[in-house]
């Protein structure tokens, strides 16, 4: 027991890899065995994360359950893990969504073994980002998460669809989407890599707590340039890398393709967790390392966030492909996260800033839950109808009432209906950002209006209106496994919507101590 408590974070981080290692030795044809080993194996980190949650001391400042070991001593990088309220929330989200997504993947029949192995390796990659307290280690896990996702999209993504590339050549849509996702994100990370190298050279360490102190204490000149210039460049290098991931408009263009072409569970994890890595980067690295630059450019960031909210909503409303609609909805919802962060950066230390941050972090969690839910439900209907075109559906509610009910519930959470989780976080962001960036917050209301519009469009075209006779007798109701996938998500949507204190308290205390 003591062993578990002392090495809790390493266990949470690497048990998925261990389970993946076990899977390597299972025979490829035993699909059921592989699925169950993967699913049950992925429940272990969840159990440990809940244990972590319970034993986390929310009143205490700083990081807990720290682990510190030698790793790459020659360049002053160590294996340093730790959690605070922010990362704890994200760890819970990740360890929850992974088993949910694995269960959702039971319908995959092609090469189940490599699929599950990649999924579990992906979990380690994501957890590593959230748990890491060393900048180099952060970067390692940041990049390594791209590889499984690339293959998941490339090999198990939508089989239909073609895109034309240079020279008129046609390639599969999933090939295009995965390549764009990988190169776009890696290209963005290049700035992060260079800035990380520079930080390591200048500060002499990659350990985040030390780095925050030393880097912010620097003054004078660096590389022949005033320190302010160097910091501003490094700030933007970090920001671009994270902005691509979140994604912030206009760096979002990889997302619609990647989300749409990914397999259902891939989209669930992509929208549910991977986008949060970017926002987490803003909170964990950008704000502590560059407080002045963050305040100086907060207005620009808030502008981009507002554009994401508005354009994301407009684009979503304009879609006929249900999955693409949900994909753009991610841009829309993550815009609120960045708006909250920008507001907090501008007015650091004020109560409004804390409220905005609370909203941002809770929105990260909430969007994770509702987006995963929405993508899964799109996947459910796609498996039955083999189309995602909204115009092909019509009045399906009487045929699939349980699915319909679940879809409406999840959609309402995504829309931000009071009583469900989305409302709490969006309200907090708006309440916090209003005194700070009144104009942008007001403009984002336009986005919010269209959020309602696209959600209702999605539901209406699918469930309501005249029944599309073509589907009568040809569409089956949502089955038990699928309900079980949605169950934890639905419970959380309602629970957080009605009584958010259990999670908001953890977040709030962490955010209050942030500055």
């Amino acid at each position, binding site marked *: 027991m003591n062993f578990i408590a002392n090495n809790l974070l390493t266990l949470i981080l690497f048990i998925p890899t261990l389970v993946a290692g076990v899977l390597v030795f299972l025979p490829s044809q035993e699909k059921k065995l592989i699925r169950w080993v993967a699913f049950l194996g992925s429940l272990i980190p969840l159990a440990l994360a809940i244990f972590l949650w319970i034993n986390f001391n929310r009143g205490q400042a700083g990081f807990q359950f720290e682990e510190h070991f*030698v*790793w*790459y*001593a*020659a*360049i002053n990088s160590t294996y340093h893990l730790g959690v605070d309220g922010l990362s704890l929330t994200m760890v819970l989200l990740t360890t929850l969504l992974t088993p949910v997504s694995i269960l959702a993947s039971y319908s995959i029949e092609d090469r189940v073994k490599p699929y599950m192995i990649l999924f579990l390796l992906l979990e380690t990659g994501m957890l590593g980002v959230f748990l890491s307290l060393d900048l*180099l280690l952060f*970067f*390692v*896990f*940041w*990049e*390594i998460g791209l*590889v499984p996702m*690339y293959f998941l999209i*490339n*090999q198990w993504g939508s089989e239909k669809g073609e895109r034309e590339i240079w020279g008129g050549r046609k390639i599969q849509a999933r*090939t295009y989407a995965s*390549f764009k996702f*990988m*190169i776009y994100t*890696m*290209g963005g990370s*290049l700035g992060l*890599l*260079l800035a990380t*190298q*520079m930080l*390591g*050279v200048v500060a002499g360490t990659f350990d985040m707590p030390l780095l925050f102190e030393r880097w912010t204490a620097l003054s004078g000149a660096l*590389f022949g340039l005033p320190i302010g210039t160097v910091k501003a460049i490094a700030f933007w290098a970090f920001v671009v890398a994270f902005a691509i991931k979140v994604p912030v408009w206009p760096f979002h263009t990889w997302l619609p393709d990647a989300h749409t072409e990914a397999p259902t569970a891939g989209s669930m994890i992509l929208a549910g967790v991977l986008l949060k890595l970017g926002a987490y980067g803003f909170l964990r690295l950008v704000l502590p390392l560059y407080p002045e630059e963050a305040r100086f450019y907060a207005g620009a960031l808030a502008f981009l966030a507002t554009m994401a909210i508005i354009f994301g909503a407009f684009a979503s409303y304009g879609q006929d492909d249900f999955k693409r609609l949900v994909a753009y909805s991610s841009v829309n919802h993550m815009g609120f996260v960045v708006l909250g962060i920008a507001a907090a950066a501008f007015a650091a230390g004020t109560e409004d800033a804390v409220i905005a941050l609370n909203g941002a972090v809770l929105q990260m969690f909430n969007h994770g839950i509702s987006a995963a839910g929405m993508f899964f439900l799109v996947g459910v209907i796609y498996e039955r109808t083999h189309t995602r075109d909204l115009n092909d559906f019509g009045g399906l509610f009487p045929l699939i009432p349980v699915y319909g009910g679940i879809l409406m519930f999840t959609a309402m959470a995504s829309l931000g209906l009071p009583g469900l989780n989305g409302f709490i976080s969006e309200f907090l962001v708006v309440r916090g950002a209003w005194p700070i960036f009144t104009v942008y917050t007001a403009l984002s209301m336009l986005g919010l209006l269209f959020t309602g519009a696209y959600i209702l469009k999605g539901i209406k075209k699918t469930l309501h209106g005249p029944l599309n006779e073509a589907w009568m007798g040809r569409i089956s109701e949502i089955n038990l496994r699928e309900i079980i996938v949605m169950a934890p998500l639905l419970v959380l949507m309602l629970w957080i919507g009605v009584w958010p204190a259990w999670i908001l308290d953890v977040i709030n205390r962490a955010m209050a101590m942030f500055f």
Partner: protein
Amino acid sequence: MQFPILSIIVFTPITAAVLLQLIPSERMTEIRVTALAAAFFAMFLSAWVYFSYDAGAGGYQFVEKYDWLPVLGISYHVGVDGISAPLVLLTGVVMFTGVLISWGIDDRPREFFTFLFILATGVFGVFVALDLFGLFFFYEIAVFPMYLLIAIWGWKVTREYAAMKLTLYLFIGSVIALVGGLAMYFASGLNTFDMLALENANFSREFQIFWFPFVFFGFAVLGGIFPFHNWSPDGHVAAPTAVSMFHAGVLMKLGAFAALRVGIMLLPEGAQFHLPWIILLALVNVVYGAYIAMVQTDFKYVIGFSSVSHMGLVMIGFATLTREGFIGAGVQMFSHGIMTALFFAVVGMVYDRAHTREIPELGGFARAMPLVAVAFIIGGLVSMGMPGFSGFIAEFPIFMGLWNYRPWIAIVAAISIVITASYIIRIIGSVFFGDMPEQFVGHIGDVTALDKVALVVLCVIMVSVGVYPSVMVPIVESGVNGVLALLGGV
């Protein structure tokens, strides 16, 4: 008198070569097994040396010194430091996996392994040599078998051209370096070729500045420095698989290593003076090499040019003359060696079955040889410097060294990372995924168990160093400290 383990390592291959000649040429299995046994023995001993090296103590260990031609100041003097120990291990690993990969050669395998092992002896000798004459001696022994191996067992289309070009380039390079070496011998006034003595020879600044280019470039030709890299892509492509593995995996490291040992360590002020333009040339290697790799259609040429690019990183790491740069270069020599050995092994496996290396003509090979695909993907990730693998452990400190020198060079060099990523992803997709062309369907068999062993060994090494850098970095660091001490006086 301690156990002469280094001499045993150096002379095992050539002894085995002689023994092989005693086996009748029709006894293919006996020949292969003998070769494998010798290779395994050499690898085992090299691993022994590596893991027994005391990083805390540093300096040269496992030293042996015997008189050879005392009247000329030539001795047989060998030893390893933190930089050469990983390279000795690398040679052992590449030798072992190379023999495994060459199991299928049925055209005069006896002679093939004989020449391969002469090459191996030469390589081991250079890495452990502490006498300048000995270094040149083993260097030539390493170069000449390349001619025979490529010209006889290579790709019929270009083998003679490539073999001639390679050998001439490398010999000319070594002659130029030899001239520099002799200059040092005569100017030191010590009447010795012993490198440890020459390290303290206190050559004048003008002498160092004049002779450094001779020595550095003479050897850096073998390291593939722009614009003398031309022999490498053709040489890689024309060579049979195991020879390519040796060539890119070890031989090019020989060049960079000798440039370090004889150039930088013996003529430190010359190095300081010339490094600015050496960095620029190496930068061209890194970025331009990646671009050229991107546009190749022959699978093997892609890898050949990617070697030129990655060796550029080694030389740029050296040229920064910083601690981080040297550490990164040291690890990169090992990491790239393993990675490129894997790449060429895979290319060989594909070519043996498809009889073409043109990327547009390939496709869907992952289904026929899944382990090979995974191994190649791992190699690809190492190549693009993906964290979690040895390539990142190597490249990151090199960039840190560049930041300490000139930030803009680090930024420009980083472009190569994205280019590498894109061409690697492209070839993985084109060769291993997608649809298999009609003519191959049903005709592509999986690789043999021996091939798989070789690939797994190489992958495990790359992942281990990537996940746990302490298994290599402390040793390299101790070697780097020795180099920095010599530069410290500058």
